[in-house]
């Protein structure tokens, strides 16, 4: 489904590349973890998969079509959903409005369906009262659940998450990863999680390690 085709990335000089000639394939209905030390380039790799940046060499393909051709903005809007460590929610909105806004921007098939958005929040343990409060009044775990619910509301087939459990305790971490597994297995989406936590990686279907500028399959 999503393919990294001979990808290379460097900042100033090619000799100092983060990684080169990366060829990885990600399938729908599967969850993947990318692990590695801090500064190894795993987040940069994720940003390439998410269409937030362009690779210096090679290309990312979605169902055989280079995402450059789709257009990065269009790709982000219609094909990929992103979850960040810092949740990246609109801090002046309620959880419900966060979902409604995302659905409107991504032109989701459920666009404007408030009940559908509320259902998604309920599924992730957000109460009716909480979903109308300002999102900043929720705990970190609750905010991350809202961010995950946002990805579920959108029609994107690829979900990428950058350290989604970085700010969460053990219990919330387990809960969040379970939600990602559900997204992969029940909604048949391709879920790619960047993490430095071995427990998180262990919960995913497959795990890649980025070390010494190369990816290796761990699981």
């Amino acid at each position, binding site marked *: 489904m999503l393919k990294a085709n001979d990808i290379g990335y460097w900042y100033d000089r090619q000799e100092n590349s983060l990684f080169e000639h990366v060829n990885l394939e990600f399938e729908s209905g599967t969850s993947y973890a990318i692990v590695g030390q801090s500064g190894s380039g795993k987040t940069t790799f994720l*940003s390439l998969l998410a269409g*937030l940046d362009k690779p210096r060499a090679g290309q990312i393909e979605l169902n055989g079509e280079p995402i450059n051709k789709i257009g990065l903005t269009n790709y982000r*809007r219609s094909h990929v959903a992103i979850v960040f460590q810092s949740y990246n929610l609109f801090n002046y909105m309620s959880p419900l409005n966060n979902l409604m806004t995302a659905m409107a921007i991504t032109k989701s098939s459920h666009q404007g369906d408030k009940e559908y958005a509320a259902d998604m929040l309920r599924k992730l343990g957000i109460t009716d009262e909480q979903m109308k409060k300002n999102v900043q009044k929720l705990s970190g775990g609750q905010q991350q659940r809202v961010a995950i619910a946002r990805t579920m509301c959108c029609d994107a087939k690829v979900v990428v998450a950058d350290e989604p459990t970085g700010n969460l305790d053990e219990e919330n971490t387990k809960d969040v990863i379970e939600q990602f597994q559900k997204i992969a297995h029940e909604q048949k989406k391709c879920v790619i999680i960047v993490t430095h936590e071995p427990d998180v990686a262990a919960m995913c279907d497959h795990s890649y390690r980025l070390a010494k500028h190369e990816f290796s399959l761990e699981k």
Partner: protein
Amino acid sequence: MNFCKRAWLNITAKKGRSILLILVTSAIMLFVLAGLLIRNAADTATSNAKKSVGATVTLSANREAAFKKMRQSTSTSKKKTKPTLSTSPVKLSDAKKIAKLSNVSSYNATVSTSANAKGFSAISTSSSSNGGGMKGGMGGSSTSSGDITIDGVTATSSVSDFSSSSSKITKGRGITAADEGTNNVVIESELAKEDSLKVGDTIKLKATTGTKKTYTLKIVGIYKASSSTSSSQGPDASDPSNSVYTSYTFANTIKGSKYKNTADSVTFNISDPAKVSSVKTAGKKLINTSKYSLSTDDSSYQTVKASMDNVKSFADKIVWLVAIAGTIILALIVILMIRERRYEIGVLLSLGEARWKIVAQFFVEMVMVLIVSIVIAGAGGKFVGNQLGKQLVSQQTTTATTSTSTSSQGQMGGGTPGGTTGGSKPSGNMKGGGGGGGSMPGSSSSSSSTASASQTDLDISVTIMDLVELGGFGLAIMFLSIMLASGGILRLQPKKVLIE
């Protein structure tokens, strides 16, 4: 239209920031509105001035041509004789032709002469001599002067002194067109007091020229000349209180039979001062320009216009300065606001939102702020506009008064003495009214124009059109501010915002 909803949510969620933005924008809009109101009021005042102050075209003898003719005859003549200036009185038939031109609303024939008081005493001042002041020939007429100055007019209401309220009828009535062919007279209140004369009494005047006949006149009105007007008289001038108004026909009778159906000058009132030149051009085609000349006087209008133009120009500067300063201030605020909202912009970009929609969201937010600000500015704009407008008008009127009086003195100094009136008219009520068309433009126009300028108040009121215009300005300011600030948004890379 999702960006509109986001804008609304943002504005309502961040109340403190929104209120501050509204206050800053209201202050900017308030001054833009004040500038617009003053500019519009100055426009209205100028067009009202056109209607109220009017302008005149005066038909009189062509003194320039007469002087030229005099010099030619002197150089060709072998005899050593004293040169004589010969000018022709204006024919009323010519005046009637000009009066029929479009934009000529009315006309006033003026004939100036003098006679001696008989059976009552003229007021004498220590500086005046019995013979009157300035002398000038009119068609070779006798130049001997009496102690009473006779201003023959078509109607006193058309005389600038009366129209500008320098002189006022206090008892009885003024001279009107109906007084043609009668011996009715309007005398000055001081003269009336001195000789215990009242409306209905008769006085006798003895002509100083021709048959030297004595005429009996009936007093139909008493006027009061403002005391300051006497200051414009020359050292040889008779006292201004000795000026009497009669019909121009009676003044002609005093001067002699050959002056029948003539006038020293005829002043035409022009309904639209902007048409003065076209009336003058058309009028020249109807007269013999070697004998007569047409001169224009729209100084009152020009004074008011200049004053209002200054106010308008200042108001324009206010509008543009505030608009430019407002754009800069708002642009800086928006830039700061956008820098603060980089994170939000990053989230929007990561969701795949189009950059123009992000810019549009900021624009809609500012438009919402603008709408509230316009309402606030609308409420306070009239007050600020009134205060500014009063200040500006008073400054402009002071400037106009100073410059008018300066030019008046200058023109008087170089003015041509003219007519048989001896320069004793109070404040020069008839432009070019001297026998030979010798005009005193400075004295004749200064008082009336200054009065008009000082009477020109700015009527400042907020109309829907003003608010629409303000809205246009506000939208332009907001658009420019957002455009200046959005350069950052357009260059922003979501990865940099969200990951780095």
